[in-house]
């Protein structure tokens, strides 16, 4: 009876809400002022790749389509490997990827590119990875990479282990078992986390970094939100996740040089800016060999860098022009501040941003 009285208006309200809110991305917002919509770009860009860029790409696509009403962009967050594969096969116009192109991939042909030209890697998305924890009575936690590696490898099993206690003087560490939560699905976050441990504590973390968590220890959870949920709802837990998702959880500081450093967008961008480019690549290829062994305490070396992989020269020049303008928007200050706001990424340093723009100038 109550349902009858309130149900009908509720159904009408829901239907109306659905009907009224179902505008396309490039209709909404009302920010499409006349001078912006004079854009001459038109066409469709298909892209696929890293899910880490997913929420940033959503924001970028919406903003770019608003500014260029005749452009349609589809980004399928199917994963870095799948994205690179689709790009090599010519299925998509550019790929988003948490790893730069491998040498053997560069040695092959790229179907979307002009014959005998190669693809280049352009960093467009930097995200610090936070080590999150939920331990009763502990608000702050300092860890060095060897201890962190031992915790996730299962060598350290108690919170009051001497190795942790030595780094956290005065903290009331409980005599409780550590539950270390890692990603159960493949993830660039895992790869970058493992790469950090492998570079800085190779004697503990000997496994080659890959998208899959290498050890049969600790606890697995699906996706970033799964890890955050598991750490939040569990007891005496620790995990790693994109920093933007850490929320109210405790975030451990990691040891860089002689100091313990918490994540910040600036520190994350700094380590990327200071790292050298991968050697033996084309001049315009901005693949970054992240130097996670930095001892500069203004750096936060636990970061994820995600690339847009584009052709140096597209087989279809008009399509090349379109991709070029979109990727150049991603790397622009405007695009970077949008993703910082919407996805919690760390904006590219202005120097790196300029390098990306310069590389894009040469894309045809």
């Amino acid at each position, binding site marked *: 009876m109550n349902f009858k009285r309130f149900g009908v208006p509720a159904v009408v309200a829901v239907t109306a809400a659905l009907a009224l809110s179902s505008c396309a991305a490039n209709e909404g917002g009302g920010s499409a002022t006349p001078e912006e919509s004079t854009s001459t770009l038109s066409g469709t860009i298909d892209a696929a790749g890293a899910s880490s860029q997913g929420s940033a790409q959503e924001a970028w696509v919406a903003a770019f389509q608003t500014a260029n009403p005749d452009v349609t962009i589809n980004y399928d967050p199917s994963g870095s490997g799948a994205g690179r594969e689709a790009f090599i096969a010519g299925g998509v116009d550019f790929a988003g990827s948490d790893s730069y192109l491998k040498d053997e991939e560069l040695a092959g042909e790229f179907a979307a590119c002009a014959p005998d030209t190669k693809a280049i890697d352009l960093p467009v998305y930097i995200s610090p990875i936070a080590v999150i924890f939920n331990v009763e009575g502990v608000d702050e936690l300092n860890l060095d990479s060897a201890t962190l590696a031992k915790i996730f490898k299962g060598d350290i099993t108690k919170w009051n282990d001497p190795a942790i206690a030595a780094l956290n003087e005065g903290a009331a560490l409980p005599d409780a078992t550590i539950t270390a939560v890692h990603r*159960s*699905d493949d993830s660039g976050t895992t790869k970058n986390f493992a790469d950090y441990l492998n570079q800085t504590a190779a004697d503990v973390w000997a496994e080659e970094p890959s998208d899959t968590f290498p050890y049969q*220890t600790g606890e697995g959870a699906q996706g970033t939100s799964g890890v955050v949920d598991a750490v939040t*709802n569990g*007891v005496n*837990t620790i995990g790693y996740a994109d920093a933007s998702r850490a929320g109210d959880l405790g975030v451990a500081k990691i040891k860089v040089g002689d100091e313990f450093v918490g994540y910040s967008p600036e520190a994350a961008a700094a380590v990327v800016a200071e790292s050298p480019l991968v050697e033996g690549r084309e001049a315009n290829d901005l693949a970054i060999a992240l130097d996670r062994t930095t001892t500069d305490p203004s750096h936060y070396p636990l970061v994820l860098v995600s690339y847009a992989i584009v052709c140096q020269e597209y087989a279809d020049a008009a399509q090349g022009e379109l991709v070029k303008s979109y990727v150049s928007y991603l790397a622009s200050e405007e695009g970077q501040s949008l993703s910082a706001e919407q996805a919690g990424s760390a904006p590219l340093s202005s120097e790196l941003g300029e390098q990306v723009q310069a590389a894009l100038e040469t894309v045809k």
Partner: protein
Amino acid sequence: MTPPEASTITAKQRPGDRIFSTATLVAGVLILVTLAAVAIFLVAQSLPAFTAVADDFKGDAENFWQYVWPLVFGTIWAAALALIMAVPLSIGIALFISHYAPRRLAQGLGYIIDLLAAVPSVVFGLWGITVLAPAVQPFYTTLTEWFGWFPLFAGPVSGTGRTILTVAVVLAVMILPIVTALCREIFLQTPVLHEEAALALGATRWEMIKLAVLPFGRPGIISASMLGLGRALGETMVVAMVLSPSAIISFAVLQSQNPTTIAANIALNFPEAHDIGVNILIATGLMLFTITLAVNMVARYIVERRKEFSGAN
């Protein structure tokens, strides 16, 4: 009297008859074609996986059988745990509805059980991860402290409660409606004569159920359980969301490392799989297909064999 000549009496074929019989034939053939198409797809796509080398597999597996064996174990183990919890409970609920509850209460209860079947599995997954797992974690801790000597409850306990036991509880809740509904229907069909005869001989109500209802319903209970098992074996989202998976074989139900299921493993790894990784996942799907087929065939066999003794005919 001459025997009727069957050949001379032929019903006139009307268009309606022809259309209807063709339509049913097409429907019947279509289901076979669909099944065959799925089987052919699975086998064809799986072939490369059987010859894959150690580098193609995640973890330490060196060939396909090493890779898939813990998954097969996890699939059966999780489903079996769920079944152990769900079937006795379902029989109890069904008996209460069919033989004990007052009529009005029985109807209401029946509706509520059916409603449970309408909850999407992803909702059960969310419930498992945000409500059930944190709620049972302290209980698990106590269990390992007191009964840690028993291999099932061996420590160290998971700090989040996202273990295979939690998954089995959620799976049990999910298969409860289907098993209960079928059992209830079967119990209601017990011949009233059998029940009255038992009561007339001085049996109590419990004895009457034991003598008349349960033997009559046994094949029904088994086929209901097998349907539930089928759902538990194939359930994907709940396991993927709630379980903390590892590629291990372990009977301990309270630890952080749990054997995962085939369906959940496919759901977790497919999004980022490429090249031969896809073939390997499809080959594990083929294994699941084979297991469910085998389970259903065994159930059929049991039901067929028991039918004669049940008094159902």
